[in-house]
């Protein structure tokens, strides 16, 4: 049997911070539900609180079986039908990576010059991600720390250089046009909460203070998002609503002599985070396939996952309607809620029922033995 790799809680949550920052950097007024981006400050606060509820099923599952991940648990509970759950998670991670990669495609098409063919980007990112996935979760976790340092330094530099452009007159009261945008923002944040399924997969391989790690992860992310939104609105004003990638526009105006035009930082941060996210998901896709098809499928499943992600993204990028479906909450929200909340709740309940049933049967058995 293959020895299980272990990572620390600090490493896990470092990875999860990188994944979330990459997706936070793609927020814009369209996705967040309207022209009052400041209302999404409250979305951050609500999502921050909801995360403590969302994590409960995964937490209790992990507490009941600390060294069993959600895939093994599904086999324990449903027998061969557990393969269905494994395949669902594999496809979910492939879907999430198509989402991330397609977003990068929109960026390259609309903002980057000169134009680079998307298949080339997809193949290049996949080549690096496959290499990362082959190296295993420990190597990825160590890389995450380096990438996080680069990302945080870059973003801090960006925020500092944009301070001279902050104009408080660009701010406005919350909920001027009602609370719709705030709730759309909450749903958008939840729909993009792809970190919970990763936790469900990796928590048994994690040692250390998980609760503290989760608390800090949640806090850092939503502070980052709230500060980001505040800086975007206060420095760009309503101009933010005209931009597909407001963080990139922010980077393009940031500058304190002699440091001007910080767009390169933005692209560097995004690409490094994208690589880590796809590599980790490929590793998890591989774990799902190993669970179903055995150890021999390890390499082939990683490669197949990469081909599906690259092919899927290229295919989606060729059709505007597919794009709209991919980024629509109608698709992302149910899938993420199923992967992060519904399946863990179902498994937790089945586990509890089976446990009680077993306990009752044991008691009955004990009574029968006594009477015998």
């Amino acid at each position, binding site marked *: 049997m293959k020895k299980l790799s272990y990572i620390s809680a600090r490493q896990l949550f470092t990875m999860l911070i990188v994944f979330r920052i990459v997706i936070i950097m793609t927020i814009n007024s369209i996705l967040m539900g309207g022209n009052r981006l400041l209302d999404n400050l409250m979305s951050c606060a609500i999502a921050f609180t909801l995360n403590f509820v969302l994590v409960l099923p995964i937490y209790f599952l992990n507490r009941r079986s600390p060294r069993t991940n959600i895939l093994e648990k599904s086999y324990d509970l449903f027998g061969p039908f557990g393969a269905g759950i494994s395949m669902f998670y594999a496809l979910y991670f492939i879907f999430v990576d198509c989402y991330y990669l397609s977003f990068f495609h929109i960026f390259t098409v609309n903002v*980057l010059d000169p134009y*680079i063919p998307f298949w080339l980007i997809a193949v*290049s990112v996949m*080549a690096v991600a496959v290499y990362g996935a082959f190296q295993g979760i420990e190597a990825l976790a160590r890389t995450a720390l380096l990438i996080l340092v680069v990302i945080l330094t870059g973003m801090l530099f960006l925020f500092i250089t944009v301070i001279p452009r902050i104009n408080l007159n660009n701010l*406005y009261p919350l909920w*001027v046009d009602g609370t719709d945008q705030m709730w759309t923002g909450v749903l958008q944040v939840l729909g993009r909460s792809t970190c919970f399924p990763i936790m469900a997969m990796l928590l048994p391989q994690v040692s250390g203070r998980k609760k503290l790690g989760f608390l800090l992860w949640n806090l850092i992310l939503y502070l980052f998002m709230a500060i980001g939104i505040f800086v975007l609105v206060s420095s760009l*004003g*309503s*101009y933010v609503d*005209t931009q597909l990638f407001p963080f990139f526009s922010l980077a393009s105006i940031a500058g304190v002599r002699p440091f001007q035009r910080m767009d390169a930082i933005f692209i560097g941060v995004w690409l490094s985070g994208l690589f880590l996210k796809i590599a980790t998901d490929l590793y998890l896709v591989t774990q799902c396939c190993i669970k179903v098809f055995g150890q021999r499928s390890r390499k082939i499943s990683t490669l197949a996952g990469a081909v599906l992600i690259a092919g899927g993204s290229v295919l989606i990028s060729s059709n505007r309607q597919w794009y709209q479906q991919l980024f629509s909450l109608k698709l992302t929200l149910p899938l993420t809620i199923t992967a992060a909340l519904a399946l863990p709740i179902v498994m937790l309940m089945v586990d509890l029922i089976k446990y009680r049933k077993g306990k009752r049967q044991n008691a009955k058995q004990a009574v029968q033995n006594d009477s015998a």
Partner: protein
Amino acid sequence: MTVLRIVGITIVAVIVLLAAGARNYTELHERLIIRGIGIDRTEQGYKVSLHALKTTEENTTELFTTEGESVYDALENLGLMTDKVPLYSHSFLVVVGREAAEHSLNDVLDFFIRYQETRPTESLFLANDTAGELFAHQKDGQYDLTRDISDTAAGRQNHSQLVQTELLDVVNAMFQNSNAVHLPVLNVSDGSIMEYGTGLFENDTLIDFLDLNQTRGLSAALGKIQGGTEVVKGPDELPVTLQYSKCSPHIKAEIQDGKPRFTLTVDCKANLSQTSTSVTQPLDKEAFEQLEQALSEKLRGQIEHALRWAVIENHCDVFGFSGALLRQQTDYWRAHQDTWINEMAEADYLIAVNTTIALEGKETSPKPFSVW
């Protein structure tokens, strides 16, 4: 594994070398580095005048003019005149001709908001006549608009009769839906390119102008004065020259008798530059108060004049009263935002200017302090 790595690295290297960015790399001498763009309306569409840096000689500028049905079409037709590849990321100013501004500012600016290379921090100006005239203007055998404006743009905060306006400001003003768009106007006069005043817009159409004195009032009310001189009557009716240092405005919005009442307070700092009194007859310390009061009165008059012309006569909220209403009287704003353009002339406006003379130079007159 080593063979796999070598093969992998070779594949990645080949991909990178064949990438579009590397293959289609454009040398600097093949670039047309655009410094400024002027846009005029023609019968067929738009005429665009461009200043581009000559990359073969130092500090010289070339003028290109091209026409098309839209701004982008005209810029694309630049390819018929030069085989160089235009680079717009170094353009720092856009001048809109009067006819183009009277037609539609939106039509002109969309390219600059949308195109990936342009920056939201480009300075925007309005030509009193045509932008082409300003771009064709020469001084000492060289085109001086981008050269002079580059000085002015860098140090334009020293010109209190030019309201600094960037693309970002104009887009934000457009979103306010209160005719808040305004642009500094340039004019060719006495063989030089001079400030002319400020253009006022109804939606995105030029309707009227503020003169230079009104423009100074507007600059002060927007907090954009950071220089420029003003001569006031000092003691014994002798002229005293003061230099503006900084103006900090604050708008208080209240609702009284069912209509808004705005109190615009401007805290102005100025320095004493020159007096006409004899050095042997120093001014007494009351002179400070007198000078401060004189400057306050003068500036207050300029602000009032600008307010009357822009807000009352032309229904252009260039001072940002609607923003103050939104922030401070949100309920009122919600109920009246659709009719605000018509109602703004009915509101009450109070203007208060407080001037402080911060520096008085090496001279001991007037005395800034006393021994006892």
